[in-house]
């Protein structure tokens, strides 16, 4: 790869015969003048290395808790009580996983969580797409008021809505029901999903839709054949957000579900906590590792769709 030489035009002080005094405006330009291609290459290499180093630090920062969790899940109870913790388990074993499966219905709760998270994310995105399109394309007083209301609704804390919500669901006979929890998550996720998708819709140039209209496509056809494919990254991002939110949500699931056969993973995980913060640490770590897997798989499957630049060159600037 060729490295372009530093552009002369970048240096306003190139004409100065001698370097200006330190701190003078021409100092930067004079330094640039001295840079040889080798130096520039070295600087770029150092810059690249710095970027990778920063990225690696960030990855470690993000990944460390997960790796520590993984390591903890394979440690024995005695090792967990040791004064000098080791990075890797000294006597790795599956006892914590066995204990976790013995103690709680992990598979059943994982299945419940999966059903709830998939249904809630799919329904909320399905509902949000046309709503986001309408809000983004048809600017009116009602639309603006709706947008503000959606934003305001995001500020409501759980505790404010939980009692009225509980009563509404009770009247609908949806307490202790997976369907009820899905409905709650759909409604709860909808405002943010709408806001997310609205931004993506706005990024699609209206001229593309006009072109489709000129070609004879109706509103629905335009939405399905032109807008929707271009929204793919937005749909994926919104799906992921909704899925992860529903998968991790605890309080609604705790309050609304009672039957053991209905409970979700996040509720089951708290069973490994005793009074006054005492935890059954090994099995808790093992169950937590298992709880992260579906999210990782979901992300791995969808992340390829998270691409940018789909609209590049779609219209003339």
């Amino acid at each position, binding site marked *: 790869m060729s490295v372009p030489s530093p552009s002369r035009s970048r240096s306003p002080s190139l004409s100065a015969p001698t370097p200006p005094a330190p701190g003078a405006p021409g100092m930067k330009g004079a330094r640039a003048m001295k840079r040889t291609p080798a130096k520039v290459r070295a600087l770029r290499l150092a810059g690249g290395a710095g970027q990778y180093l920063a990225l690696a630090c960030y990855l470690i920062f993000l990944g460390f808790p997960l790796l520590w969790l993984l390591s903890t899940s394979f440690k024995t109870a005695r090792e967990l009580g040791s004064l000098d913790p080791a990075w890797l388990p000294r006597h790795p074993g599956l006892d914590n996983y066995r204990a976790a499966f013995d103690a709680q219905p992990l598979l059943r709760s994982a299945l419940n969580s999966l059903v709830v998270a998939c249904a809630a994310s799919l329904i909320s995105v399905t509902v949000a797409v046309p709503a986001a399109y309408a809000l983004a394309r048809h600017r009116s007083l009602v639309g603006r008021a709706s947008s503000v209301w*959606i934003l305001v609704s995001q500020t409501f804390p759980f505790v404010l809505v939980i009692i009225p919500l509980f009563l509404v669901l*009770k009247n609908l*006979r949806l307490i202790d029901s997976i369907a009820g929890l*899905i*409905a709650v998550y759909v*409604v709860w996720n909808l405002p943010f999903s709408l806001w997310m998708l609205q931004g993506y819709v706005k990024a699609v140039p209206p001229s593309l839709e006009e072109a489709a209209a000129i070609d004879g496509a109706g509103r629905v056809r335009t939405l399905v054949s032109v807008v929707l494919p271009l929204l793919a990254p937005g749909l994926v991002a919104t799906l992921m957000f909704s899925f992860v939110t529903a998968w991790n949500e605890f309080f609604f699931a705790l309050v609304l579900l009672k039957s053991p056969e209905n409970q979700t993973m996040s509720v089951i995980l708290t069973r490994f906590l005793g009074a006054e913060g*005492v935890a059954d640490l090994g099995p808790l770590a093992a169950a937590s590792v298992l709880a992260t897997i579906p999210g990782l798989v979901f992300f791995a499957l969808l992340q390829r769709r998270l691409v940018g630049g789909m609209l590049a060159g779609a219209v003339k600037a």
Partner: protein
Amino acid sequence: MRTLLPGAATTLALSLLAGCGAAPDTTADGEIRLEFLSLAWQKESVEANKRLVRQWNEDHPGVQVRYVQGSWDSVHDQLLTSFLGGEAPDIIHDDASDLTDFAHGGYLADLTPYLPKRLRDDIPQESWETTSYDEGVYGVPFLQEPRVLIANTKLLKGSGVRLPTAQRPWTWQDFEDISKKLTRDVDGDGRTDTYGVAWAMKEPVAQSVNLALSTGGKVFTKDGDGKNRIRYDTAESSVPELVRRQVNEDRTAPRNGLGMSGSDTLPGFFGGRYAMLPLNFSYRQQVRQQAPEGFGWTVLPMPGDSTGLTQGVAPQTLSVSRDSAHKKAAVDFIAYLNQADHQVELATGDWLLPTSREALKDPAVNTRRYGWRTGVDIAAGLRPSPVLGVLGFAEWKDKIATPAYQEYYNGALGTDELRTRLVADGNRILDRYQR
């Protein structure tokens, strides 16, 4: 609104699909159905609870109990929502400190008319007082958790100190002196290698208040009008002053221990950094599970003064929801769980102490193994925690007492400043709840 409509439509659509709701209290053929929210935690205890429910259901076909597992971490919010929504379980496992608000809020049934005499007589009056408000009984106190000293046998024997018993306990002065004896700099580098004691004070309020009883203190008293007042005189401040002295002057307790939970102190205990740990009785399970092979440990009573081995406890309780349609049947089930042999099973499963006099005689809790016998020996000195029945305690604890005690133990506050904050600021909070 546009966004709410699809949500509402979805809710309605799903409601049609769901078609299932709460099970009725009574079936068409007259069978009573009860829901039992249990907070049993250890595997053995959960199994014991489920086994007893199964046995009950087999023996009582007309009253079927459904076991629902809850967790300590979230039970208050879960119950509060269920009470307000009219969907609370019939039988509720909780602890006495949580009952204050629920009983005063009118969510729990007064069990007085339903309690069988056998059960009333078998549990000591001191325990009943932990769940009694305004002449009503709102829960059956069935498991309790005193504070004990878990000690490193080798270090204790090496120092030549006399081991305390319930009959001949250490005084607090003995405890302070022995902590000094156990604190050592083995390699002579000027740094302490072994501390006599580690005070886990992440949650300082309950233990500070409950241990005040061991020196004749109360912290919460009632004035002439029957209103709760906070008192913090010599009797109340004696143990906290000792802890502060150990951390800041004697250096027989590590400062970093103050920020730890009980579990956090265990690795240091196993590693010989701390010779003694004041911990709740059930921590013995973790010690047994995590202690290195060959590690010797013992369970000792907390020190006491002239009042003997007195300390405050807030027992675990079994209550009945006021909305339950079958209170008598629910109390019958509670009485069944509290038959002495059943209570022993539940207690040993969670490494706790039963309240039943008969259960305390059971060989399973009268063994020296894992310090069970120490618990039984000190049971007679257990009294209701002073915090029980005090409306506004939770707010006082969170806003005033927790930060004040933490600063005090760290040496940032003096005793007078602590008193001012606990009493003057605290009484203002209590007044709001007692108008």
